[in-house]
Every structure is written in structure tokens, then in C-alpha cells.
């Protein structure tokens, strides 16, 4: 790279131009590269929110591990929840490359200063919810996340590749559970339909507000952090899910849902944005519970983390002394 006269005079502008070129050319920004402060902040917020979602998302599923009705399902569920802890780890690591550390972000989470996906503020009321979370919630997450595998920020894109692979696996497992239940007893089938009735609309809300109400989308798309608008992704999700619901034999709880031949896409009913906003603001069915559990785990673990630090310091001191 040659340094032009212009760049020498305003190195910041030069760096920004370089950054813009890289992004425009679908290149990757890496931790040591210069990046605009807004880009960094947006990334931190988005990745942290994603990491928090993985961690809080362990709770609704964790609710059924001890009661899983077969050992095979118990193993699958335990492994899935473990994977989510793993995803949280990669994502927090990705934020560390941007200069914030995990404990700082955890504090922000438990102080309600950062958010997580609103879907995890709904309760899991039956074991069919486990299948539906796999099918619908992980399904929606994948639609959201697949484009992020091409995110302009390298560590995030690489984390997403790994995460998306595991999420697809989880989604297939969820769908397979639902298939089994639908082939089972009447009670099992009723359980599935009930779970679908409860989770369908919240899953549509996972894509965020309608485009008109999503002020950050344009900048995020310009930075290639985001690649599609909320409504585009939501439509993709609906179109993908409807045939799966048919294959499964469940009814999606939306009387307005139908194929629109003209648009070559499904029309669907209005989302209850009041409910969405309520949940986002902390008034969902489980917000208080989720945060309280996370806070309790964090506080209860403080003495353990302190011990680990103290021990590591002692060991380091011994090595120096030796």
C-alpha cells in the first residue's frame, strides 16, 4: 500500500477510506485493522446481544433437562444447551477482539443495560416447546444468522459459520422431535399444536421491528454487518416455514396466512407490536425470572471466580520466584 499525499495529511480519513474500500469489496475487517468508532460500537452491541441471547436462551430449554422423557432426548437437550454455552463463549471472545471483556458485558446484561432476544422471555410449558424452539426459534435464528457468516467483521463472521452449522443441527433435531410427537399419542399431538400456537408469533418478532421502525438497519447494511432488512428476513422465514408446518401437520395460528401468487410469497397477519414492545421493555412473561436467574448464577459464582484468579496469581508468583 502506498501512502498518498492526501492520506499523510489526514491519516484518519485515509484509514476510513481504506476501511470503506475493504467493506465495499466484501473484504474482512480484522481486530488489528482500523475501524470507525460507530462500527465498533454497533458490532459490540450486536454481538453482545447475540451472546446474551445464547446464554439466556439456555434457561427455557434448561427447564426441561431434568424432566426429559427419554434418555435420548435428555442427551440431545443437554448437548444442545451446552452448545449454546459454547456459542456464548465464542461470541464473547469475538467482542473481546473489539476491546470489551466478558465480565463487563455480563454486568451490563444483569443490569438490564444490554438486551437479549425477546423470544427467551416466553416460558416453556411442555416438552413440545423444546421441539418448537428447535424448529421455529432456531429456524428464525438461522435465517437471521446465515447472512452474518459473511459479516464484514472477521471474528464475528467466523464465529457465525460455526454457530450456524450447529444451529442447523439443532433445528433438525427439533423438527425430528416434533415429527415423533405428531406420530405419537393424541396428547402428544395436542402438545405440539399448543406449543406452535404459543411460539409462532413470538418467532416472527425475532426479526425485530418492521423496516420503517428500525433506524439502525441502513447503517448496519452499509457496513455489511447486516445484509438484509428485518422484513426481508421475516418474509424468508415465513416462506420457509409454511411448507414445514404442512409436512408436520400443524396449523400456524394466523388466519390471514396464505400464498400470494402475485408476490410469490406468503401474506401473513399483523404482528402485535405492542406485545413486542412490552417484552422488549421488560414486561414479558419471563423477563424478571430470566434476569434474576442469570444474576443469581453470576453472584453465586463470584467466590469461585475470585478463587481462580487468586490461585492463578499465586502460581504466577511462584513461577517468578522459581
Amino acid at each position, binding site marked *: 500500500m502506498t501512502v498518498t499525499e492526501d492520506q499523510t495529511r489526514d491519516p484518519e480519513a485515509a484509514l476510513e477510506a481504506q476501511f470503506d474500500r475493504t467493506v465495499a469489496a466484501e473484504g474482512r475487517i480484522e481486530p488489528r485493522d482500523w475501524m470507525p468508532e460507530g462500527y465498533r460500537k454497533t458490532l459490540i452491541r450486536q454481538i453482545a446481544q447475540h451472546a446474551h441471547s445464547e446464554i439466556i436462551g439456555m434457561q427455557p430449554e434448561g427447564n426441561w433437562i431434568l424432566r426429559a422423557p*427419554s434418555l435420548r432426548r435428555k442427551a440431545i437437550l443437554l448437548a444442545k444447551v451446552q452448545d449454546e454455552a459454547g456459542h456464548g463463549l465464542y461470541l464473547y471472545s469475538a467482542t473481546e477482539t473489539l476491546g470489551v471483556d466478558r465480565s463487563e458485558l455480563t454486568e451490563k446484561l444483569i443490569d438490564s443495560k444490554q438486551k437479549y432476544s425477546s423470544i427467551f422471555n416466553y416460558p416453556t410449558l411442555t416438552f413440545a416447546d423444546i421441539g418448537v424452539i428447535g424448529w421455529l426459534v432456531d429456524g428464525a435464528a438461522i435465517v437471521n444468522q446465515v447472512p452474518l457468516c459473511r459479516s464484514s467483521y472477521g471474528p464475528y463472521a467466523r464465529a457465525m459459520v460455526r454457530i450456524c452449522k450447529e444451529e442447523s443441527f439443532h433445528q433438525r433435531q427439533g423438527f425430528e422431535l416434533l415429527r415423533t410427537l405428531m406420530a405419537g399419542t393424541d396428547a402428544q399431538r395436542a402438545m405440539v399444536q399448543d406449543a406452535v400456537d404459543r411460539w409462532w408469533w413470538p418467532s416472527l418478532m425475532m426479526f425485530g421491528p418492521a423496516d420503517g421502525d428500525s433506524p439502525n438497519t441502513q447503517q448496519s447494511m452499509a457496513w455489511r454487518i447486516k445484509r438484509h432488512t428485518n422484513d426481508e428476513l421475516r418474509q424468508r422465514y415465513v416462506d420457509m416455514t409454511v411448507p414445514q408446518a404442512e409436512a408436520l401437520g400443524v396449523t400456524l395460528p394466523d388466519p390471514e396466512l396464505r400464498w400470494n401468487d402475485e408476490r410469490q410469497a406468503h401474506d401473513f397477519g399483523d404482528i402485535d407490536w405492542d406485545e413486542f414492545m412490552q417484552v422488549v421493555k421488560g414486561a414479558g412473561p419471563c423477563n424478571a425470572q430470566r434476569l434474576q436467574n442469570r444474576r443469581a448464577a453470576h453472584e453465586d459464582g463470584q467466590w469461585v471466580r475470585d*478463587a481462580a484468579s487468586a490461585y492463578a496469581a499465586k502460581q504466577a508468583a511462584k513461577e517468578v520466584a522459581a
Partner: protein
Amino acid sequence: REDLAAYCLMLADDALIASQRLAGWTTKAPELEEEVALANIALDLLGQARVLLSRAGHLGAAEPFRAGPWDAQRSGAGPLPQDDEDVLTYFRDDRAFRNVTLVETDLGDFGRTIAWLLVLSSWRLALMQRLTGSGDPVLAAVAGKAVKELTYHRDYAAQWVLRLGDGTEVSHVRMQAGLDAVWPFVEELFLPHAVERRLADAGVAVDPGGLRAEVDAVLDQVLPTATLTRPERPAVGLVGGRGGRDGVHTEALGTLLALMQSLARAHPEATW
């Protein structure tokens, strides 16, 4: 054959109940790395349990429970459709579980959990190491895989015993208290059951009485380094000479099973 089935159940139930206890840490661990590690250990133990339960099932252990756990007169219903491993897990009452009582105890805080895990994994590792030489090829194979897993579990526990024992003053106190709380349940690990004795004589099983030296060796190495004291607390007594291996458990097991079995029992006709 009946002895072998009973022996498979003993080894399976130890792993199954321990796994259930560890799974209770989900979303409550002090750090994400520990979420992952504890889930790993729970999964390993669950895997060991499943193979052993299936084996016990092949040997006929599930048959008495196939009619459902209930009063025989509710007999209009057919046999349970589940796999052997699930019949044995979900439709046995606590008195038919053969695990040592250590595994069913409340894990308490992270310190107690780590003490529990150190004892449990050192003991089971010693057991499985010997079992690799079992005259029963299935048990030998199970043991071969388990040895690798348990070595990791033990090392994980030992590292945390060091960190907590020799960490802060608070952690030292809590780690010692955890060890003290676990201690009364250790003695039972070395008490041979008649089934174990008979099968050990036949070269199939391990007499747990012989495992004490190996567990002691681990503790003698780890505890002093971690600045911890080997507790001097009396062992819990048996009830009329019977313990977990005879189906006489602590009060903790009934509550654990009530939750574990609730959903499967609500739908006995269902498979999942």
C-alpha cells in the same frame, strides 16, 4: 445372568443419577467454561448409563417394570412401549435403584460439587480401570471408554480442588466444608455387595473393597497440595445393614426421581 443384570444396573444407576445431579447445574455454573465442562461430564456419565442400562435390559432387567410402575390390577393397559433404558429409568421406583447414595446427594455449592466429583470420579476411574480386564467383553468395552472420560473428570475436579482450596480464604473454607459434607458418603463406595462379590470371584466384576488405596492415593496427593484436611467425620450408617446397592437410599433420591420421571410417567403410552 441375574447377577450380571444387577451389576449392570449398579454401575448404570451410579452414572445416571450422578448425571442428573450434574445436569442440575445447567444455567447456574460460576462461569461459562464450567457450564460447558459440567455438561460434558454429565453427558459422558449419561452415555455410560445408557449402554449399561441397555445391557441390563438385554439381560431381562426391564421386564418387571414393563407393566408400568403401578398396582398390578391396573392391568387393562398393555406393556410399556419404551426402550429398555427408558423403562428402567422412568418406571422403576426408588427402591429398585441400585446406585450408591453418594451420587444422589444434593450437590450444594460449587465447592461441594467439586469435592463430590473428585471422590466420585477417582473411585469410578479406579473401578473402570480394573473392569477393563473383566471376563465380560461388554463390560470390558464399556470400561475402556469410561476410563478415558473419567480421567478427564478426575483431572477437572482435582484442578478445581486446588484452585478453591488454595485460592482465597473464603474459597478455602467453602472447599473444606464441601469436602466435609461429602465425606460421610465415601465409605459406602468401598462396601462390596453380595452380587459384586460373586461376580468378582467369577472375574467379571470388581470388588470395590480393593479400590480404597487408589482413591486414597488421589486424595493424599490432591488434598495437601490444596491445603485441605482429610475430614474425620463418621460415615453414614446403613439401614438394617442395607444401603444404596440394596435399594435403601437417602431421602434425596425420591425427590430427584419425582421430577425426573414426572413427564414420562404422565404419558406411559408415549414414545419420544
